[in-house]
């Protein structure tokens, strides 16, 4: 093998980023699961989530013991996991900012690059390279971070419509905040579905996110690299 023209692909994730990623994933699973149970007690759309996909204990048992279908349990989960969510978002954000991961790997993204990579992805021609995010990936990761930020703010607006009434007002009132909270939950769940599907297609990204490092087959360096 000749050196200089071919490169081994390497994806590496420092420990703190991995810890933050998995804590964030765990807290989002808890927030979504308990949130769906809470939603079911007073749905804002004409559908409910099947109880088996929600978090809050066995509904039938809860009715016997607590006169309640498990929503007390779900609320307890939601307001416990919000601290885990807040802590892991903070950890991830600070680490991403201070290590330069945000500036170097996530931020340089423009509409033209996004469109180029998006059309390539849509026609299954986009190549995935370990250790390098394409423009579609960048927009996805930045987008989900933004969605998480909006979820935290709209969640606070629902939790404290009196003490944080300015925030609630910003979302168009209590009902507006509930609607935004639901819509961005949907966006995050949508992200997770695509994210997991792509991880299944390129499993080495999971290896890197667990062990911190994964290597892929060498690829030819583009001209000028």
């Amino acid at each position: 093998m000749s050196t200089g023209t071919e490169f081994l692909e390497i994806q590496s994730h420092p420990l703190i980023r991995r810890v933050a990623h998995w804590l964030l994933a765990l807290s989002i699973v808890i927030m979504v699961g308990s949130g769906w149970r809470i939603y079911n007690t007073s749905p804002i759309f004409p559908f409910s989530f099947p109880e088996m996909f929600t978090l809050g204990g066995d509904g039938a048992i809860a009715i016997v013991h607590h006169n309640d279908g498990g929503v007390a349990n779900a609320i307890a989960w939601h307001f416990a996991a919000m601290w885990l969510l807040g802590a892991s978002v903070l950890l991830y954000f600070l680490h991403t900012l201070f290590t330069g991961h945000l500036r170097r790997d996530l931020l340089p993204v423009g509409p033209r690059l996004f469109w180029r990579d998006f059309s390539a992805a849509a026609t299954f021609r986009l190549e995935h390279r370990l250790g390098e995010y394409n423009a579609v990936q960048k927009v996805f990761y930045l987008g989900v971070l933004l969605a998480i930020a909006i979820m935290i703010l709209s969640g606070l607006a629902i939790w404290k419509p009196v003490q944080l009434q300015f925030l609630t007002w910003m979302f168009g009132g209590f009902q507006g905040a509930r609607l935004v909270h639901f819509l961005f939950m949907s966006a995050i769940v949508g992200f997770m579905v695509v994210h997991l599907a792509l991880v299944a297609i390129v499993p080495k990204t999971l290896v890197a996110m667990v062990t911190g490092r994964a290597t892929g087959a060498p690829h030819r360096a583009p001209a000028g690299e």
Partner: protein
Amino acid sequence: MAKLPGLQRTALVAQIERRVLLRGTMSLGAVSLLGGCDISDSDAVQGVLGAMSRWNDRVQAALFSPTRLAPVFDERLAVKDFRYNAYYPKQKAPVLNAADYRLELSGLIGDKRKWTVDQLHALPQQSQVTRHVCVEGWSMIGKWSGTPLRTFLDRVGTDTTARYVGFTCADGYYEGIDMPTALHPQTIMAFQLSDRVLPSEFGFPFKLRIPTKLGFKNPKWITSITVTNREPPGFWTDRGYNWFSGI
């Protein structure tokens, strides 16, 4: 991300990666088990969630401002046909007789004489159009009129340095609030809903209207008030809901 030139990938590395991948997949499976029913019903999990709920009580007490008012709305937005809400049907709601009713006082209160409905109605009153927010997520704007609890507590010589005020109700319900909330200017003993004497199913002769708390912290058909330094239990708090439940 950095690219190192010319490294060759060995079979050993590939083997390790496979093993790690397998482990990673198994931990993903463990996360998905969270959605199962058993985990929430375990004592250890309930212990952690209970401790977090107590922590959230403290956070909420710190967030509560004794002077910040709940948003008030135009009277035209007040719902005339307010939603009946309890854990039993309307027909089972207590119907109290005004002539027989007596409000009992206990605890750190100077004058513990009982109050009749007429005596209560003679107290100074004010109105509010505020949003009732239910823990379930629905909310409704209503108009309530009555006496600030603070006015009443002052009138009967309450030790307002005490920490809590507790309530018991004709239907067996019980609830307790922190003293700062009890003294909040919008916390009222509501004698009227939508400009009419509080109907039986809404808590006649009076309910507590606290626009800074969730709906279940607004007890109806109140028959006794106690002022105490020991945290009074709450009906729904005993069933797993958060105690402070401020909004």
